[in-house]
């Protein structure tokens, strides 16, 4: 009775709150029941990366490689040259003995995702669409599909539905190395150049020849892909995938753990290590073309650094002995990078060299001895060396603020600053956001310069011309402002070489030249860190879980 009376009292006193709780509780099943929009059962893979594509138009932007690479094919491109089972628009290719005439055999009977025939004429259209824009006010030179390299081309023609011929003015490997996405003529023929380079959004569903077609694109959120029923090797077995876009890797790591994601890229070493302890997750680390480097501001006059020593090869070379790339890879990248060496990344196997006969080794005493020999001594005994004008060194090192796979970790910057301090060259580190870094490292003619050292990164294609881009005159990526006529000559010759062996010789000569001149000290070649869950899908890659250059493995992945 007492209990009943007490219960009644509680009810009367708190009846409103109790009713509210019941009401709220009744909505819980609706909210908590998990409508299972993301689950193994639907055979739709959930993947994620740090990216922010702004349009699905490959002529207007560089930012939509993911996800457009799953829908559009390159004619050949990077992966098709590395893997026989990852071909692009062309099934086979060859070059004539004159090294000028390239013939591409397009997959017979291939169709676009809307069922229309995909032929050599579409490939010819894509290249000619670009080429014909050259010199016009709306030249298509600002996006992934751009006119770069087409100045070397004499003629592009479809000999028949299955044969594309590219004739170049000089020998060049551009016909196979280029990463132009082949688009359907029947969609793009009416798009003006002005629209193609800006406002044409190429709204989904896209029409492509890749295994997965972009069916929905929500800016800042995701792209939803559906399998291409007409894919040349058969419709992909899975029901599609969703590529979610994130501003940082934290949510990616959490999504993998919770099972919301099947695959995630751009992980940090700490997240990667944490995920590696999860039994339901496989972690991966792929060698990519990324390079992290220390650049010297070699400019003289406009944009020059605080001391003329930066323009002195002997000074830069000596600094090279004060950098321990092994320790940087081990500590700053926690082992998820190869130690830096030369201009060529290890993954570009055709061109990589260990430079055994000329490579520097970490030795602070040797660095100090070389600085002494070059005339940079500590004359007044204050522990700081003086340059040839008698001024004590105090160098400004600028770098970005973000960390992760592509950016150099701040730990690497601290290591470099520490080593230079030990040999009498004090460093003041300035961290900047990406916009400020771009502004300060712009060419002096564009308002950049007036810094001393810069630590940053770059990720370009593994083609020979792109491997040499850091040292080339007039190219934005040349952050060191270094100019060398011989190097430019070699780079120009590489661009006009079709034979791999000759190209390798030229690249090697250029790499050795810039290594000795030392406008850059390569710090590391970072890996792409990624992870996948084991429970829903199979068929992921082994060297690379997901390709960084093609549609792989979404053409063959299967649900479990």
């Amino acid at each position, binding site marked *: 009775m007492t209990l009943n009376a007490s219960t009644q009292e509680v009810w009367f006193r708190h009846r409103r709150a109790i009713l509210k709780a019941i009401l709220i509780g009744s909505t819980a099943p*609706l*909210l*908590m029941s*998990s*409508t299972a*929009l993301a689950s193994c059962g*639907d055979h*739709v893979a959930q993947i994620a990366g740090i990216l922010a594509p*702004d*349009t699905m*138009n490959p002529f*207007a*932007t*560089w*930012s939509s*490689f993911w996800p457009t690479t799953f829908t559009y094919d390159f004619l050949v491109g990077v992966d098709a040259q590395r893997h026989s089972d990852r071909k692009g628009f062309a099934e086979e290719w060859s070059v004539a003995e004159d090294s000028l005439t390239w013939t591409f055999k397009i997959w017979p009977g291939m169709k676009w995702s809307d069922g229309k025939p995909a032929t050599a004429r579409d490939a010819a259209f894509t290249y000619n669409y670009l080429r014909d824009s050259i010199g016009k006010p709306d030249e298509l*030179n*600002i996006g992934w599909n*751009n006119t*770069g390299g087409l100045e070397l081309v004499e003629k592009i023609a479809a000999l028949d539905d299955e044969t594309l011929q590219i004739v170049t003015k000089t020998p060049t490997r551009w016909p196979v190395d280029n*990463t132009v996405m082949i688009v359907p003529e029947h969609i793009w023929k009416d798009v003006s150049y002005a629209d193609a*380079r*800006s*406002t044409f*959004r190429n709204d989904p569903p896209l029409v492509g020849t890749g295994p997965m077609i972009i069916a*929905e694109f*929500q*800016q*800042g*959120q*995701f792209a939803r892909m559906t399998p291409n029923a007409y894919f040349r090797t058969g419709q992909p077995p899975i029901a599609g995938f969703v590529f*979610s*876009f*994130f*501003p*940082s890797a*934290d*949510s990616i790591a*959490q*999504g993998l753990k*919770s099972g*919301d994601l099947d695959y995630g890229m751009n992980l940090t070493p700490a997240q990667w290590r944490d995920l590696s302890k999860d039994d339901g997750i496989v972690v991966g680390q792929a060698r990519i073309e990324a390079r992290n480097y220390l650049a010297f501001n070699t400019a003289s006059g406009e944009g020059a650094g605080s001391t003329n020593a930066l323009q002195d090869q002997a000074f830069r070379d000596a600094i090279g002995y004060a950098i321990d790339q092994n320790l940087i890879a081990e500590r700053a990248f926690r082992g998820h990078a190869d130690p830096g060496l030369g201009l060529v990344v290890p993954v570009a196997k055709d061109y990589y060299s260990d430079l055994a006969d000329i490579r520097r080794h970490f030795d602070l005493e040797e660095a100090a001895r070389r600085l002494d020999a070059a005339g940079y001594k500590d004359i007044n005994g204050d522990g700081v060396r003086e340059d040839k004008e008698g001024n004590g060194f105090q160098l400004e090192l600028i770098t970005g603020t973000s960390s992760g796979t592509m950016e150099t970790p701040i730990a690497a910057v601290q290591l470099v600053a520490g080593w230079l301090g030990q040999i009498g060259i004090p460093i003041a580190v300035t961290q*900047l956001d*990406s*916009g*400020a870094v*771009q*502004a300060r490292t*712009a*060419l002096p003619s564009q*308002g950049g310069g007036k810094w001393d050292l810069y630590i940053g990164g770059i990720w*370009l*294609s593994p083609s020979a*011309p*792109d491997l040499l*881009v850091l040292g080339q005159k*007039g*190219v*934005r*990526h040349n952050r060191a402002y270094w100019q060398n006529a011989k190097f430019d000559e070699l780079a120009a010759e590489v661009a006009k070489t079709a034979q791999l062996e000759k190209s390798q010789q030229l690249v090697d000569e250029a790499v050795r030249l810039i290594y000795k001149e030392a406008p850059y000290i390569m710090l590391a070649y970072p890996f792409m860190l990624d992870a996948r869950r084991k429970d829903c899908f199979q068929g992921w890659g082994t060297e690379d879980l997901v390709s960084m250059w093609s549609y792989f493995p979404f053409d063959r992945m299967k649900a479990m």
Partner: protein
Amino acid sequence: MAGGSGGRAGHHTGRIIFRAAATLLMVAILNFLLFRVIPGDPANMLLAGARSAITIHQIEAQRQSWGLDKPLIPNQLFSYVSATLQGDLGYSFKFRGRRVSDLILERIPATLALAGLAQLIAITIGVTLGIIAGWRRGGAVDNITTGISLALYSTPPFWLGMLLVVAFSTMLGWLPGYGAYSAGAAHVGILGRLSDHARHLILPVLAVTLGLIGQYVVVARAAMSDVVTEDYIVTARAKGLTNNQMLMRHAFRNAMLPVVTLITLNLGYVVAGAITVESVFAWPGIGSLTVEALNARDYPVLQGIFLLLGASIVFANLMADLIYGVLDPRVR
């Protein structure tokens, strides 16, 4: 006398409306100048993701495309001001010529849902708890509420967000930890879509709400603490009014002035969203758009967002000024 009072009120209203309009014009001009002071070149940023060599020619082409090659003053400024006065916010660099107004309108619903709902919940709970805590100063409710509120107030919302994701998404698996809805939700019917959206909304709303509740509790408690010591409360008590009568008739209304200030200021920020929380949850609102635009130095989008933000804050202040007049006629 009545006419004189009405005239004073009208004059007061006219003055604050004129002040609001002048502020807005200043905001528009400052928006143009401030973002261009930040180091960074949009033309370079647009090419930042390039995987092939970029030449100076290509950078110049970008610059020309977006009119960045023209002199900043007077050409670009004049063009911006004249377009803005006509209601045209311009075209985005990053989003390749999309109208800024379209981009903002596209993102606003997500932000209003997140920040609006969070404000509503926080105001209701926070003010109530603050008033109770202030009314019963020194009691158990006051001590517990104030302690928790101070802790929440001093905790960054993004940190709360990360904790919530780890707890409710990663560990318990109850709720999604990112995005506004699941891809494919559009195909499961309106109820399924609403339910899906609601599930995505819970954690980010909770993260913002928890941060705001602390703020409201602290301010409301302080205001109420001042009021309860006033003479008229002592008089009311002496007249034999009950606690509820004193609270509702005398204390509550007088304690509301600073709370109204905070509410209106916070409501002004509703459209700005909660930038850090939106980042944690990959929430596609105005906050995320701001970060994307800032990273790309997308001046037109930044100008548009901050003009909207400025306008909403000016409007909120305008509302506060007008409400003050109603709550306390002395401020007229």
